[in-house]
């Protein structure tokens, strides 16, 4: 029955009842209408209260009424049914009508009659909502299912718990040696105090002593350790102590090494070495100072003052002023000896440097250049080409710079202009590497210039290659100003240049003349195009002549190349070295240079790639052909067999000794007769077993008598025969090994103590093994009893 239908019905009924309202005579048929009407008037009353008001008559009647009311809700059809059914059937013992047996009574049936009262409508709404909601509680699971879930959860939990033993089990499996029982007391003497705990002081003397002990907080009984001892025990276990000792040992060793090194360095008499060292230190100091200036200006100021003080002292003293005894003697020699002159000059330079007024920190970098340069220069001059071509510094320079003898004849860039070009680049501090390069390049150019001017240049004999490194290092700091310095005193520079000249000469000479010529012809007009070719030719020789050809031809591809080509001009170099910028500043890595070259190669390899592919295909075919064409198995087999036979034949042993019974010496051979006499011919071997079997090779190596003693299969734990063999090969007996080694090698896998009960492993053992170092328990008296007594004692307690 729908609610709307019911409502329509009720409305009609209420209209009818308007005039009946006051008449108390109510028929049974009208009851329902009457009730409804009442309710509609009494807005506040609930259903039940209304019925109670009505209920003046007996229960039965009321009940009947209710039933009728309910039945009337169903509409005509139901009412008809009700009429037909028996009275007894209508009133069931559960006070719910049994009529319309198949149908259910829904909530709306019961409440639908109530109309429009505000409270009830609210509840109605709620009920409606409830009806619309479908998420009802499910039936509880069956017992079996619940138990199953419980079991699974419990099992998961337990197995997880048990898995915590996995590590221990694996460790025990892998252990070289296991000692049972697991939680053994450490052997060795025990403190007396523990052994005599039961004892008590009785005599006055003893008591006095005990009092004294008490005063000093000496423990008497169970914890036999003083608090400090306890603390120390807690602080460090045996293992920790061992670790600490090892550390100390290491530190001591390091210290001794350091001392030895310092001593060694101190002993070095080489001035140059110390000079370099000092320079490095100074540089380091400056760097630090620079940093300090930024971070801690106050300290920097202090430092500055100190430096100023040093300068003042230097100015006041006669040191480095060529006034000492040594300087005087040098002065005498200076007339004749070049070196003495240089030494004096050097000293003056030092003085100059030390008395130099410190510049304002901001331009210190630029200023420092000349300061440092001054003493550096003479070294530079003294120096000559290192013979070692493997020096990475040289390699780096050369590969970047590509010295070319031909170039000098072609071009001579104006030095000033060059520097102007350089300057902006160098201004950017990051490019220290490029600075060095620029410097070296300049030298190179000057060298070329000199070469063209006068073919033979006197070359100062070389000393050390380390010097070169030094120079370059200087170059880092020196920067532009140094170069300008060089310009100022041309002669000096020329000296340097001559040096570099010879330095690179050899390498340059090695280059293929043809290549050079080609390069020069190709790039005759523009010098910018020249350099790259040389660059690539430089020691790395990553391209051949053909490549060079291609390079010159493929202009379109060379779009990327000018960067490399124009390495002479600084501007272009800047574009060329962006990769380098990011890399290490001080060291020039050969690989870096190589990568640079590789770029070029990539370019001209590209067009040939297709051809190569084609070639590859052909090669593939050839390979396949080869693989299958020359499959002359039979002849191979015969060859193999012959080889084996030949190998099996015993060789003639020549026992001739030269010089016995005749002259011996270089170029002399023992006589034929003698040789014949002393050649020992072995007996022919027994005939091979495959002698008469043309298509079979039977190996003669296998010896059946030995096979009996050999292991046929690789045993389990071993992974390769070699492993197994090496295991067998190592003797373990004391015939071959020292006693200690034998003890170690023959240590049994499991050690059990005689008469000791081995308890199952416990969490404590496992924890103990884990953190043996950290948690060391106080020695407890109970621990001295065998472990299996403990529980009993607990029981007794």
């Amino acid at each position, binding site marked *: 029955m729908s609610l709307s239908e019911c409502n329509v019905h009720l409305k009609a009924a209420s209209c009818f009842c308007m005039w009946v309202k006051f008449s108390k005579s109510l028929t049974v048929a009208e009851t329902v209408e009457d009730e409804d009407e009442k309710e509609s008037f009494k807005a506040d009353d609930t259903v039940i209260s209304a019925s109670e008001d009505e209920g003046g008559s007996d229960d039965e009647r009321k009940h009947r009424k209710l039933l009728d009311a309910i039945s009337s809700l169903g509409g005509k059809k139901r009412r008809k049914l009700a009429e037909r059914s028996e009275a007894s059937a209508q009133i069931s013992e559960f006070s719910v009508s049994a009529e319309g047996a198949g149908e259910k009574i829904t909530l709306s049936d019961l409440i639908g009659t109530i109309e429009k009262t505000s409270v009830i409508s609210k509840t109605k709404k709620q009920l409606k909502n409830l009806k619309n909601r479908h998420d009802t509680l499910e039936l509880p699971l069956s017992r079996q299912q619940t138990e199953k879930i419980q079991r699974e959860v*419990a099992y998961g939990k337990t197995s997880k718990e048990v898995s915590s033993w996995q590590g221990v089990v694996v460790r*025990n499996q892998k252990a070289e040696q296991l000692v049972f029982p697991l939680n053994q007391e450490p052997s060795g003497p025990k403190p007396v105090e523990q052994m005599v705990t039961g004892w008590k002081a009785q005599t006055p003397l003893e008591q006095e002593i005990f009092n004294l002990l008490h005063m000093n907080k000496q423990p008497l009984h169970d914890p036999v350790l003083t608090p400090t001892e306890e603390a120390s025990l807690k602080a460090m276990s045996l293992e920790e102590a061992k670790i600490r000792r090892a550390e100390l040992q290491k530190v001591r*060793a390091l210290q001794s090494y350091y001392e030895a090194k310092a001593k060694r360095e101190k002993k070095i008499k080489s001035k140059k070495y110390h000079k370099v060292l000092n320079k490095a230190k100074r540089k380091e100091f400056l760097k630090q100072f620079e940093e300090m200036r930024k971070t801690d200006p106050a300290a920097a100021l202090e430092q500055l003052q100190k430096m100023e003080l040093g300068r003042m002292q230097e100015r006041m003293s006669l040191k480095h002023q060529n006034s000492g005894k040594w300087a005087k003697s040098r002065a005498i020699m200076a007339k004749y000896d070049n070196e003495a002159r240089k030494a004096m000059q050097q000293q003056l330079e030092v003085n100059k440097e030390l008395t130099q007024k410190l510049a304002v920190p901001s331009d210190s970098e630029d200023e420092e250049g000349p300061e440092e340069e001054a003493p550096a220069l003479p070294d530079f001059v003294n120096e000559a080409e290192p013979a070692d071509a493997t020096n990475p510094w040289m390699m780096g320079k050369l590969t970047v710079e590509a010295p070319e003898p031909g170039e000098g004849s072609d071009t001579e860039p104006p030095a000033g202009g060059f520097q102007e070009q350089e300057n902006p680049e160098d201004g950017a501090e990051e490019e220290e590497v490029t600075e060095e390069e620029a410097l070296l390049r300049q030298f190179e150019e000057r060298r070329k210039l000199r070469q063209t001017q006068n073919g033979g240049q006197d070359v100062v004999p070389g000393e050390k290659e380390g010097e070169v490194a030094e120079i370059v290092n200087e170059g880092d700091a020196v920067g532009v100003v140094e170069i300008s310095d060089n310009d100022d005193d041309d002669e000096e520079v020329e000296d340097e240049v001559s040096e570099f000249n010879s330095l690179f000469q050899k390498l340059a000479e090695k280059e293929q003349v043809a290549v050079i010529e080609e390069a020069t012809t190709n790039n005759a007009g523009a010098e910018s195009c020249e350099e790259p070719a040389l660059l690539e030719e430089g020691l790395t020789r990553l391209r051949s002549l053909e490549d060079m050809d291609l390079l010159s031809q493929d202009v379109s591809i060379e779009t990327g190349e000018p960067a490399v080509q124009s390495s002479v001009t600084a501007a272009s170099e800047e574009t060329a070295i962006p990769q380098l910028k990011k890399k290490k500043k001080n060291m020039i890595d050969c690989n870096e240079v190589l990568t640079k070259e590789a770029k070029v190669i990539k370019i001209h390899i590209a067009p040939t790639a297709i051809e190569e592919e084609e070639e590859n295909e052909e090669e593939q075919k050839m390979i396949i052909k080869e693989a299958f064409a020359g499959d002359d198995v039979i002849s191979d087999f015969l060859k193999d067999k012959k080889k084996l036979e030949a190998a099996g034949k015993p060789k003639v042993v020549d026992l001739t000794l030269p010089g016995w019974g005749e002259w011996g010496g270089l170029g002399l051979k023992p006589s034929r007769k003698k040789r014949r006499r002393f050649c020992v011919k072995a007996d022919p071997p027994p005939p091979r077993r495959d002698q008469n079997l043309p298509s079979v090779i039977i190996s003669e190596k296998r010896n059946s008598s030995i096979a009996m003693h050999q292991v046929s299969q690789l045993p389990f734990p071993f992974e390769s025969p070699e492993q197994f063999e090496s295991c067998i090969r190592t*003797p373990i007996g004391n015939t*071959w090994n020292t006693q200690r080694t034998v*003890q170690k090698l023959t240590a049994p896998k*499991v050690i059990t103590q005689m008469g000791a009960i*081995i308890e199952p*492993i416990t969490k404590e053992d496992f924890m103990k093994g884990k953190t043996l170092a950290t948690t060391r328990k106080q020695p407890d008296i109970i621990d001295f009893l065998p472990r*299996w007594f403990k529980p009993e004692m607990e029981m007794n307690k």
Partner: protein
Amino acid sequence: MKVKVLCRNPDDYVRETTKDIQRVPRNYDPSLHPFEIPREFTRALNATKLERVFAKPFLASLDGHRDGVNCMAKHPASLSTLLSGSCDGEVKMWNLTKRECTRTLQAHEGFVRGMCTRFCGTSFFTVGDDKTIKQWKMEAPSYGEEEEPLTTILGKAVYTGIDHHWKEGIFATCGQQVDIWDEQKSSPIRTFSWGVDSFNSVRFNPVETHLLASCASDRSIVLYDMREATPLKKVIMKLRSNTLCWNPMEAFNFTCANEDYNLYSFDMRRLDVPKVVHMDHVSAVLDLDYSPTGMEFVSASFDKTVRIFPKDSGRSREVYHTKRMQHVICVKWSPDNKYILTGSDEMNIRLWKANASEKLGVLSPREKAAMNYNQKLKDKFQHHPQVRRIARHRHLPKPVYSQSKELRVMKEARRRKERNVHKHSKPGSVPLVTEKEKHVLTVVK
């Protein structure tokens, strides 16, 4: 600064007393001692031979029971004490060093089905066919005192096994169901049953002490956690397991002795496949016990032999038997890892060495060193056919020998058939089942 100087310690070359052997400086130059491998091989061969010569494992037979020995229990604190219960309800306490019975008590009417000692060794429990659990004092009653149990619990059904918790006053019995008892209470604190009506044995885990496992007559092994209300898991095998034993050093591993002549080692976290199948017995395996080191276990079988298996090996390393020993019903490994005790049908308890050729008693250091060296040599050359042949050679009683041969033939035939079936059927239709997988039917969650 480290100063290095030449120093010579007199201890290295001067003997302490004149009784000492002279210290002989040795030159270990390998060229002076050629033929290392052959010489060591010979030594290994000799050591192996001597091992077999000295292999006399049988130590003593303890007689006194008037019926077959049905169960035994080790004393947790005393190495020399052994308890045994027989099929006539008698319990005997033995002193192993003296090899004599120290105490006899009539514990039950009918079989003594199971017995266990309290973890502290002050008392022991027995269960019997008379449906009772009895707790007895370990000490013998003083003169004039009557032999009476400390407590007696009368149950509703026969208890077939008992085991005590390793740390607390709790024990477990099995019969119609698995019960967990508090020693102070007369009714079980927990009862587990899972559709089975008879359990053969129950064992507490010695490491994770709240875990226990039981074997049931429906061919299953059931795991329990004492703290949970339900059992944990059940694995059903092809045939019934008689007993099981947990590995005392590996908390999650246990081995069960099965009716199908095999023993199966399980990881309780992976019950679907046994870790190792130990085969060698030719009849039902009745009992087993782990060595206290957890490296090996010993098994007793209905085929009148006792075998020792390494825990990882599928084959036994040792077999013990004597002419007079009948079906071995129970076996124990002594807690010092040295001895094995077996109780058999013909009323005797036998004491064996766990390592057949071991020399008993105190060894001098040289003896010990020689023993270690020989052992190492044997290990080193164990794969060489000559050595292996000698090391593996055992004499077997004729029935066992013929039976094992027969079994081998049967197995081979079965394997061949399986292979052929696999070969001649559609690929994929007949899966290859490994030996391990064969014996487990299902795992019930």
